[in-house]
């Protein structure tokens, strides 16, 4: 385990932590369901992949590294698919996407009433 390996692993894992934080922030702050799935589906996948890749780099060559690479592959294909299925189901059951115009209109209506 060389110093370069450790530094690379730390950089990758910090990047993963950053993207996971961004996705958590998006989940808390964004206005409606579609925006939240948009935030989580992309940045959480990237954050998980970066964190796992950092672990693989830290581990060096071995059986565990191949297992981690398989996990990365399956997260890469399964997580966006799950997001797609959830967002598609919401759209087909009739959840209206959030728009700024409609939101301000509802706001003024609320204020008047």
């Amino acid at each position: 385990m060389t110093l370069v390996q450790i530094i690379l692993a730390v950089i990758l894992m910090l990047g993963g932590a950053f993207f996971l934080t961004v996705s958590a922030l998006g989940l808390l702050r964004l206005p409606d369901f579609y925006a939240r799935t948009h935030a989580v589906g992309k940045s959480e996948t990237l954050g998980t992949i970066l964190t796992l890749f950092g672990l693989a780099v830290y581990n060096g060559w071995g059986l565990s590294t191949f297992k981690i690479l398989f996990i990365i592959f399956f997260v890469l294909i399964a997580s966006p698919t799950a997001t797609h299925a959830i967002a598609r189901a919401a759209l087909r059951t009739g959840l209206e996407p959030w728009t700024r115009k409609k939101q301000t209109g509802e706001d003024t209506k609320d204020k008047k009433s």
Partner: protein
Amino acid sequence: MIKERYQSIIVQVICSLLIPFIQLFALYVIFHGHYGPGGGFQGGVLLAVSIILQRLYLGTEVSYRKFPPKLAPALGAIGMLVFGLAGVIPMLFGGAFLDYGNLPIPWVHGAELRALGILIVEIGIGMAVFGTLVLIFDSLIGEGW
């Protein structure tokens, strides 16, 4: 309700890609149960999840042909039978209940015989859990019964 297949090409392709890997990993979990984490129950749950995923994305009309719902209770019963026989047969040959050292398998002795007995029990538990969970799912969606 889920009679026809899921109308999204992405979900169909990814599910058909994932299901063989899920089943392979389930077999790994069952057969690796006495060396690492896992065992019969976990492997059986993974096998059942692969069939449930198939039911969800293919629809019951096709999926009932691939894995008939009548097969699930039979698998559960056979799994319990395997478990019970692995427990009772050593009693007939002079051991206690689930005493694998007395299983009447020639050319295997001692610790190897005990490991083989645990493997038989794990396979039985895996089949029982697999059948039972698929049966629960089929009863919940309420078709074909």
